[in-house]
């Protein structure tokens, strides 16, 4: 009865009720959206690499190395010589290595030069291996294997030719037109930057750059190109090549720290080795302050939204005293009047939360492609997490608590007024 009255009363004040609902809904959407982006970005980052003990690159900051080598964010400042890579890869502690050569792109997607080890040893999520959706892995020099998003967005199938361009921008004027690659396979979706990567052979990458260098009469590049095999894919044939970074899997995880020290102290070339998990923690420390600020701002927006509801309810009280007197005359108790206002506050808050969640999910579904393409953020649109539920409960409790203020005031009015308004 009281809830029905509360809902009908709100319907009678549609305009203010809708405005209040919108402000609470938007505030909840913002709060949960910030939390969702925070947790999803962390999860997405953490799931990008797994089972790799070290990432080795030219001397640079650990965070920078992690970002460009694993997350394809930014560019390397320097390369690693192939012989340095071989020397470390042949250490007895090392189980496997994956060389990575970055710096080129295809229609806005990063191109990664690598070897068959990538498809054998690279792991993501919870120790998940890369799987082919169709076609085959790299075999010949000009083979290319596409990440799932690349294939979907560019509409490529195995057999299609592609050209790669120098640099990582969306548009490049430096296309390697005389070295076309052929799509031989498409990977299954991983929800990581792999989906947005074009994988080619290191040798193909070398050939492309050698050709580009030859065009500028570089004798070294010509020598590299002369060593390239057009038909068979053998990564070891070009000892003068340079790579951007490489991933290392160790026979024993316990050797990671000593191996890291060994790489850092490598005398032939200044190198940096990082433990991906530890460096990821550094990333979170850097972005943690911004996350907290963002969360605090969104929490304040919720407070403003609820304060709006308080103002709307309080301003309606004086004009509703007669209505309360009529309800008292038909037998409503002061507690009924109290419950009526509480019901309105609770209804507005709960509906506002529901509206906020609906808006958030619609926003996530609509914005997911943009987040993936622009920020490389892979959002899973699933059920709210326990923490998000806890946030919703806190907002609902805050709404009900705020409802106590007008409810108590009208309770006092109804006690004093009875059936006659006393001002």
């Amino acid at each position, binding site marked *: *009865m009281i809830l029905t*009255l509360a809902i*009908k*009363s709100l*319907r*009678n004040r549609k305009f203010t009720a809708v405005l209040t609902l919108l402000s609470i809904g938007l505030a909840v959407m913002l709060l949960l959206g910030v939390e969702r982006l925070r947790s999803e970005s962390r999860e997405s980052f953490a799931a990008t690499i797994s089972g790799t003990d070290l990432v080795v690159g030219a001397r640079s900051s650990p965070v920078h190395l992690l970002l460009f080598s694993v997350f394809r964010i930014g560019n390397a400042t320097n390369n690693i010589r192939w012989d340095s890579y071989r020397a470390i890869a042949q250490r007895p502690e090392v189980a496997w290595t994956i060389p990575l050569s970055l710096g080129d792109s295809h229609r806005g997607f990063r191109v990664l030069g690598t070897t068959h080890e990538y498809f054998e040893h690279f792991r993501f999520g919870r120790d998940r291996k890369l799987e082919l959706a169709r076609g085959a892995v790299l075999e010949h020099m000009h083979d290319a294997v596409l990440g799932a998003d690349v294939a979907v967005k560019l509409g490529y199938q195995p057999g299609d030719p592609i050209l790669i361009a120098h640099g990582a921008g969306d548009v490049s004027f430096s296309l390697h037109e005389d070295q076309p690659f052929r799509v031989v396979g498409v990977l299954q979706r991983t929800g990581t930057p792999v989906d947005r990567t074009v994988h080619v052979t290191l040798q193909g990458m070398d050939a492309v750059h050698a050709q580009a260098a030859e065009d500028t009469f570089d004798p070294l590049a010509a020598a590299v190109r002369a060593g390239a095999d057009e038909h068979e894919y053998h990564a070891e044939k070009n000892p003068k090549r340079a790579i951007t970074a490489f991933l290392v899997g160790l026979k024993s995880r316990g050797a990671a720290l000593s191996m890291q020290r060994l790489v850092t102290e490598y005398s032939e070339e200044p190198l940096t080795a990082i433990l991906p998990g530890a460096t990821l923690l550094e990333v979170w420390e850097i972005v943690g302050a911004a996350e907290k600020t963002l969360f605090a701002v969104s929490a304040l927006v919720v407070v403003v939204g609820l304060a709006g509801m308080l103002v709307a309810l309080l301003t309606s009280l004086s004009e509703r005293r*007669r*209505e309360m007197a*009529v*309800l*008292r*005359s*038909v*037998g*409503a*108790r*002061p*507690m*009924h009047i109290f419950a009526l206002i509480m019901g309105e506050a609770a209804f507005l808050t709960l509906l506002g939360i529901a509206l906020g969640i609906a808006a958030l999910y619609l926003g996530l579904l609509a914005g997911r492609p943009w987040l993936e393409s622009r920020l490389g953020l892979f959002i899973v649109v699933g059920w709210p997490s326990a923490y998000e539920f806890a946030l919703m409960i806190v907002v609902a409790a805050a709404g009900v608590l705020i409802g106590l203020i007008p409810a108590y005031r009208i309770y006092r009015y109804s006690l004093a007024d*009875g*059936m*006659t308004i006393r001002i």
Partner: protein
Amino acid sequence: MDVPAPATSQTLAPQRSGGSPEPVVTLSGVRFSWSGAAPFVIDIDSLRVTRGERVFLRGPSGSGKSTLLSLLAGVITPLAGTVRVLDRDIGTLGGAGRDRFRADHVGFIFQMFNLIPYLSVVENVCLPCGFSKRRKERAGREGGTVQAEAVRLLEHLDMGEAALLGRPVTELSVGQQQRVAAARALIGAPELVIADEPTSSLDADRRAAFLDLLFRECAREQAALIFVSHDASLAPLFDRTIQFADINRAFGPAPAPV
């Protein structure tokens, strides 16, 4: 003014087995002040209203009429004396008990702004049954369902058109609103109907029609009616007229037992 002929309380009030009319309201030695101490706004030695009786309570503004109605409704309790409604000393009931008693036994009609603006005509009439199980059961017995009883009462008050029933009350004329308020006061057959200047905003024709309908329905249910107004021209229509100044020592100089 076309109004029903006045009747005596003896003809309307049912008799107890001993012969005296059954009292609905009995006040004795009732004193009340808002401050909790003298001077009092209500100081009534005695007042008795019997079942089926139509009492006209007349007095100027500020004489304490609305305070007396609040005492009868159990919204407030006297500082001294007893207020008995249907043989219950309602001053001995707790707050919730008095609210429940009011919901079960008293129907109210106010001067204006009687209705809940966001409810339809029928919903307004059914409202007391949402707060009183007893009135809900009685309304159900009378009309089959509460809604059917509301429609029946509205039909008696010439408000039974289907188009009117679901209409928002804010779209009704003042006269129509007062008839809806009367139907709400009468649903579930309360033993006491209190009308606080319900006709002051009606023109003469509407007033006569409204009173006719109100009297008819109260007589049908044998409800006692206490009708408060300062319009002396209405007095002849009632079984009995009480000058409020005559019974309230706090206001008038020469109280007389009634």
